[in-house]
Each structure stands twice: as structure tokens, then as C-alpha cells.
């Protein structure tokens, strides 16, 4: 079928929903989601949303901006960080007015708690800036925005999976989507597409990300010729449940939890003397990995302990009840009395589709691609730089989701209805047919596991020229093997076998851009740490990486970082 809407938003997490609310009523907009909207991965965010409300102690947006820039190891574009920090207060009050059930202070204000990398006085000490609803902050905001969207009459296509972005003469004319319920391939003709498709943590073996986090929008934009930015920066969250990767929020440390090595030492004091366990995530993850490498993991193994025993049952129940239940369910551990085994888990992608401050996707010449917009984790606004701070992601989604929606409304008048190319869905139809016709080929599950293990081994917290070169060889070999993939399911209804096979192309392509971008950055900055280049090198690498698709793989170029107020200086916590 052919569907026609002025605006198509892809992804029903917080960025997509917030953008949708902005355009709803102003134009004919529709929202596509590969899952039912309330299953979106924004819902897995636990700890909170940052804003300098000053409800618990004095706080100022300037401090928040500084922390964001420093957290990003000065790769953050400072004009973007300024927008975020200034708009945060309004954004959080807006969510409260919509009904988000935040925890409260004794005076009835929104409660706030400490979080990694958020400080007062430009790094003096930790500050309570994270607004939260227990440890299910993302979920309650997601539900609130979803039902608010429904209330506004938003048109939603649930379980519609985007499989191609359709461009003509370097502008967007629509997209191709697969309907899970029927197996039909549809063309969505539109004047504007907003990509809000989230991250791609599934490139790695151990991740806090959902199965749906396969970077569909990022890869499809890249395949359509859009440059990806800063792909080498992958955030490993310090505290995933050992073995599973399920997230234990930084809020656990914000509320007083401490990391301990085998001898029981609270080792973060050595790595970040000022704010210790509340240092930025890359710093804490590297510290854990170092403890493990130096033999101080628990019983010499590859994990450390998170100690929440001093928090007490009441605090755990009121503020951290979900994570308390996760460790009970998956490990049989009582967080009030026992230590929790944790290890870093792939959590967030700082890199993504090159996007300007108004949400417009940019081409290599820094010009907007007509009709194409991006928001949320799939975009790279250069807000999080080389490492994102906790609680800045939910904030990013609602602040820049809203801005992207507003930009689309503003631009729409100048965006004409262009005829799509003939048979815009042909590529997707052919690909599906060839997958279904192939017999006895390779299973996607095996190739995907090989990719995830290989990336975890070679391209995680510590990287070297050697490990990355090996990763590149292996990813290209897996890309070759992928060409032989066959599937079991030839049916039309809820054929997730087919979709998982298609998603693997996206994961492989994104892994390649991560590895190539990481090879290009011969320094250590934020989440990108090179054992062979352990220092930050502002002379040569204070710049963003751009990766453009060519027949020979990603071609790298760079662009400058926007620095307005905070001059780069050594980063210590």
C-alpha cells in the first residue's frame, strides 16, 4: 500500500513522541514504531532526568552546561550543551504538568538526587540535579507522553518496521516499512521524515539495550548517503548485572552505593578523589576494567561488587525498587544485605546521524538534507561529545525532540510533495524475496553472535591499533558471510525471523563504522580509550569524526568542535 502523510516520525520513544506532540494538530503527522510504543527502549531508563531546578540545594544551568561539556571530554559542542542546560528546567516542569509522577521533597517539590558527573561550582562536589520517579523514570515519562499523544489523536502505526529511506535528488520523499502483522511492504510518501529510532547497543554482546536497539534509522540514513558522526564513542555503563548486562542505575551510587574490588576496597577513591563513585561513566568503567585486569576482580574474575548494603531497606524500596527486584529475580540476591556482582555493559551511543541544533540532518557539506530530521540517540548533535552524562539522555530526548518537531512545522511550507522514484519499495521487496528463496544458508543468529563477541573483545573499553584492525578484518568477513544468510520462516504473519535477518545488515554496517572511526582517532578521549595512545591530543584530535559510506567502506573526514565558554583543560574528577 501507499500511505501519505505530511510528516512521518519513526520511533516511539521519548524523542519521537515529544516531537509528535509538537507537530500534532499543526499538520498531518504519523508515527511508526517497530514495537508497540510503550515497549520503546526509553522506558528502560531508570535514574532520572537532569535539570538545575535547585529544589534540594542551589544549582545553576551554567554548572549543568559545564558538567555536560567536561563529561563529554570537551568534544561536546558547547552551543548545544547551552541549549540543553538552559531548556532543562522548562522541560522538566512541562513533564510534571503532563502528569509524570516524580518523587517529591518534604516541601512537595520535585525531588532530586546526585548522579555521575553532575556537580556544583564547576566540579567542586556532587550536586542533586537528577529528577526522578523511583528507578523507573524513563518508563513513567514514556507512558505519560504516549497517552498524551493518544489524547491528542496522534496517528500511530505500531509494529511497522522501517526498512528503507527513500531519497530523490538528495531530498527525502518517504520511506519503506514492513508491517509485522501482515507481512506487507508499504511505501510511506511524505514531505518530512524524523528519525527517532534510538541506539544500537546490540552491536555488542553484553548490553543494557533492548533487542529492538539495532540502529535501523542510523544505518538506513548512512546507506542513503548521510554522514555519521563520532561513531567511535560507545558508552559502557559501569554497572550492568554481571553476565546479563541488565542495568543497575547510577542512581544506586547517587543514593550512596559504593563499588568494591576483591579486597573490599572502595577503589574509586583512587581514580576520582573528589567525587569518587560519581565520576563520569567512562572514568568509572575504565576503573572497573583496570581493577579486573590487575587481578582485583572478585575472586580474580571479571567483575566487581556494587555495595548497597548501607542504604537500608526503606531507601531501596522507595527509590531503587526496580533494581532491587532485578537482582533478586536474576541473581537471587538481597541488595539490602548482599553485594551485587557488576561489570560494564554497553549502554549508549554518543555517535549517530549528523544533526544540527534545530534537528535538521546535515550532509557532508554541512547543509541540511531537505525533509530529513533526527532526534534522540540515533542523532549526533555533538551534545554528549565523547561521553554522555547520566540523566542527560532523557533530557536530550524531550528538549531536542520538541525542537525537531518545531523545526519541521516551520520548514513544512517550503517542503513540496515530490514524486517518489518508480517502485520505491523494489529494493526491499527484492531483498525479502531473496532471503525467503535461499535454502540451506547461514543462520543469522550465528553471524550476529560472532559479531557481538568480536566487537566486545576488540572494540570495548580498551582498544589498540591491533585489536581494531582485527575487528575490521572480522567484521568484513562477517559481512561476506551475511550474504549467504537464509531463514526458516517463509510465512507472512509476525515473521520476526525475517526482520532479525534484515536487522543484522544494519548491525554489521554500524559495527564497521564504529571500528573505522575508532581506528582514525589515535588518542584517548572520553569513552574512546586507546592503549597505544593513552593521552588526549587536543592538537590533532579536538574535532568530530564523520563517516561517509563508499563502495570501499566508510570514508572518514572531520569537522571542528564548537567551543564557546569552556576552554579544554585536563579532565579529573
Amino acid at each position, binding site marked *: 500500500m501507499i500511505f501519505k502523510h505530511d510528516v512521518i516520525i519513526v520511533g516511539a520513544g521519548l524523542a519521537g513522541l515529544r516531537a509528535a506532540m509538537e507537530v500534532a494538530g499543526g499538520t498531518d503527522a504519523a508515527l511508526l514504531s517497530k514495537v508497540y510504543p510503550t515497549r520503546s527502549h526509553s522506558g528502560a531508563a531508570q535514574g532520572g532526568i537532569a535539570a538545575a531546578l535547585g529544589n534540594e540545594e542551589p544549582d545553576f544551568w551554567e554548572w549543568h552546561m559545564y558538567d555536560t561539556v567536561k563529561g563529554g571530554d570537551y568534544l561536546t559542542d558547547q552551543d548545544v550543551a547551552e541549549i540543553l542546560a538552559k531548556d532543562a528546567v522548562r522541560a522538566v516542569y512541562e513533564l510534571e504538568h503532563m*502528569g509524570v509522577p516524580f518523587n517529591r521533597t518534604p516541601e512537595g517539590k520535585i525531588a532530586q538526587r546526585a548522579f555521575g558527573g553532575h556537580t556544583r561550582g564547576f566540579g567542586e562536589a556532587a550536586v542533586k540535579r537528577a529528577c526522578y520517579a523511583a528507578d523507573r523514570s524513563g518508563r513513567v515519562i514514556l507512558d505519560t507522553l504516549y497517552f498524551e499523544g493518544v489524547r491528542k489523536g496522534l496517528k500511530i502505526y505500531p509494529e511497522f518496521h522501517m526498512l528503507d529511506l527513500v531519497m530523490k535528488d538528495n531530498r527525502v520523499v518517504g520511506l519503506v516499512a514492513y508491517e509485522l502483522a501482515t507481512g506487507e511492504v508499504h511505501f510511506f510518501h511524505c514531505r518530512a521524515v524524523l528519525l527517532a529510532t534510538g541506539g544500537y547497543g546490540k552491536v555488542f554482546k553484553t548490553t543494557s539495550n533492548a533487542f529492538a536497539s539495532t540502529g535501523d534509522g542510523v544505518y538506513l540514513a548512512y546507506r542513503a548517503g548521510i554522514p555519521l558522526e563520532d561513531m567511535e564513542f560507545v558508552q559502557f555503563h559501569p554497572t550492568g548485572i554481571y553476565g546479563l548486562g541488565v542495568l543497575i542505575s547510577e542512581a544506586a551510587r547517587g543514593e550512596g552505593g559504593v563499588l568494591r574490588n576483591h579486597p573490599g576496597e572502595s577503589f574509586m577513591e583512587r581514580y576520582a578523589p573528589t567525587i569518587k563513585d560519581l565520576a563520569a561513566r567512562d572514568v568509572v568503567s575504565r576503573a572497573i576494567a583496570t581493577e579486573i585486569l590487575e587481578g582485583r576482580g572478585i575472586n580474580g574474575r571479571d567483575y566487581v561488587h556494587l555495595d548497597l548494603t548501607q542504604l537500608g531497606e526503606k531507601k531501596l524500596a522507595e527509590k531503587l525498587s526496580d533494581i532491587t*527486584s532485578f537482582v533478586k529475580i536474576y541473581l537471587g540476591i538481597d541488595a539490602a544485605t548482599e553485594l551485587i556482582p557488576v561489570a560494564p555493559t554497553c549502554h549508549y551511543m554518543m555517535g549517530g546521524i549528523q544533526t544540527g541544533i534545530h534537528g535538521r540532518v546535515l550532509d557532508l557539506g554541512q547543509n541540511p538534507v531537505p525533509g530529513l530530521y533526527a532526534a534522540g540517540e540515533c542523532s549526533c548533535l555533538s551534545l554528549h561529545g565523547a561521553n554522555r552524562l547520566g540523566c542527560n539522555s532523557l533530557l536530550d530526548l524531550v528538549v531536542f525532540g520538541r525542537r525537531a518537531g518545531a523545526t519541521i512545522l516551520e520548514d513544512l511550507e517550503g517542503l513540496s510533495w515530490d514524486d517518489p522514484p518508480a517502485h520505491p519499495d523494489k529494493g526491499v521487496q527484492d531483498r525479502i524475496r531473496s532471503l525467503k528463496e535461499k535454502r540451506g544458508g547461514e543462520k543469522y543468529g550465528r553471524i550476529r553472535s560472532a559479531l557481538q563477541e568480536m566487537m566486545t573483545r576488540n572494540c570495548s573499553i580498551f582498544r589498540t591499533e591491533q585489536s581494531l584492525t582485527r575487528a575490521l578484518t572480522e567484521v568484513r568477513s562477517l559481512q561476506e558471510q551475511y550474504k549467504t544468510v537464509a531463514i526458516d520462516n517463509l510465512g507472512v504473519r509476525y515473521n520476526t525471523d525475517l526482520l532479525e535477518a534484515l536487522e543484522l545488515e544494519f548491525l554489521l554496517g554500524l559495527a564497521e563504522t564504529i571500528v573505522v572511526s575508532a581506528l582514525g582517532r589515535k588518542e584517548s578521549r572520553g569513552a574512546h580509550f586507546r592503549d597505544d595512545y593513552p593521552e588526549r591530543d587536543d592538537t590533532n584530535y579536538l574535532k568530530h569524526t564523520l563517516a561517509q559510506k563508499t563502495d570501499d567502506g566508510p570514508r572518514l573526514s572531520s569537522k571542528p568542535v564548537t567551543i564557546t565558554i569552556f576552554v579544554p583543560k585536563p579532565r579529573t574528577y
Partner: protein
Amino acid sequence: MDMKFRIFRFDPEVDGEPRYQEYTVSAEPGERILDCLNRIKWEQDGTLSYRMSCAHGVCGSDGMRINGACALACQKLVKEYADTKVTLEPLPFFRVLKDLTVDVNAFLDGIMYFRPWLITLSDPPEKERPQSQEDAKRVEEVIRCILCACCTGACPVMQENPYYVGPAALVWAFRHVFDSRDEQKIERLKQLDFADGVWPCVNHFECTRVCPKKIPVTKCINTLKREIETTVKRS
């Protein structure tokens, strides 16, 4: 260890009748039932359909019947079923779309019916609407709902009366009836006060037993009934 599964299979467009298919997979005791399902699908039989996403009990996609009890496949561990064959079936009461995938649209419509959003008539203040810690605590348990539909699937009343709005819709109604910021409490209570509204619940407690987020669902429904009795009926 080897785990034996017996899984409900049905494609309504192709199959006349549902059937059960048997599989054996090796699994570690600490793994999830969802891990086993994935292993079956990825290694043995890609035709199997089920929903999943976050895999740790937050997104609410993988509600199903595991050995007769509604639960999330990502929250149940292999070791809980060590000596038994595990039967996996779709959530009862819901229309089957394929295998373990069910139609949730009517379920979501039921929740929408009670307007699951904050309704205020006054303009918002410049900052937050104040709320005491005590008032926030009233909804602390119900805001855990992840819309997984286990409660509705497990409810014996739903089986007899498909028009009953069901436990999940009532949990969402509770959330806004008792949100001190909402300004339509009486209207909301009146809306709940009808034959297929809050009253069909007769305290089987199945919803409460199966809720993966440990929401005291039955207690919430009883609180709503009492509130209607004392607030609406009295006025």
C-alpha cells in the same frame, strides 16, 4: 541442562487448529525462559513467533502463559522449572495472532477508556504542581504498571465476562483517581461505577498473584470500590 518445551503453535491464516510442538534446548539454570525461546528460534525453528524487547521486565512485551501461569518469559528462570517440561501458551482470553503473539488492541482501548492522562482544569503554575510525599506515595505502587497484560490474561472474571474492563484498566484508573494533581476525581469515579466497570471483580486475586511488578491489583480495585461508595454514592 536439557530443557524440554511444549509450545503452542497457531497461524490462524493457515492452520485449522492450534497444535503443540516439542523442543529440547540446553540451558544454564540462571538463564531466562526467554533465552530458551530465543535459542529455539535462532537455532532450531525460525517459524516460532513471540514478542520481546528489553528482556528484563520493563517493556512488557513477553507476557505469556508458562506452565499455566501468566508471566513474563524474561523474568522466569530455567531453574524454577528444572524438573518439568515447560508448556508455553499465549495469554488466555486474548485473540491469538500467531503462536505466542496476541492482539493487545482491545486491551489498550480498555485502558484508554478511563482517560489515562492527568486532567487539570486550572492553568499550571510556573514551576511544578506541588504534591506532598504522602500523596505521591498513594500511587507509588500503580506507577509500576508496564502494560504487559498478565493480570488481564489471568483474571477468571474476564473469561466469563469479556465486557469487564479488566484489572489493568482499573490500575490505570486508580493511578489518576488518586493522583492529587488530577481535578476529575469524582467524574472518574462515576465513570468506573457501572456493571462492567469496577464491580465485576470478586477478589480471585489472580491478577495480584501474577503481576510481574508486584502491584497489589486486587487491593487497588477494592480501594476504588470503597471510594465510589464513600465519595460518589454519598454525594
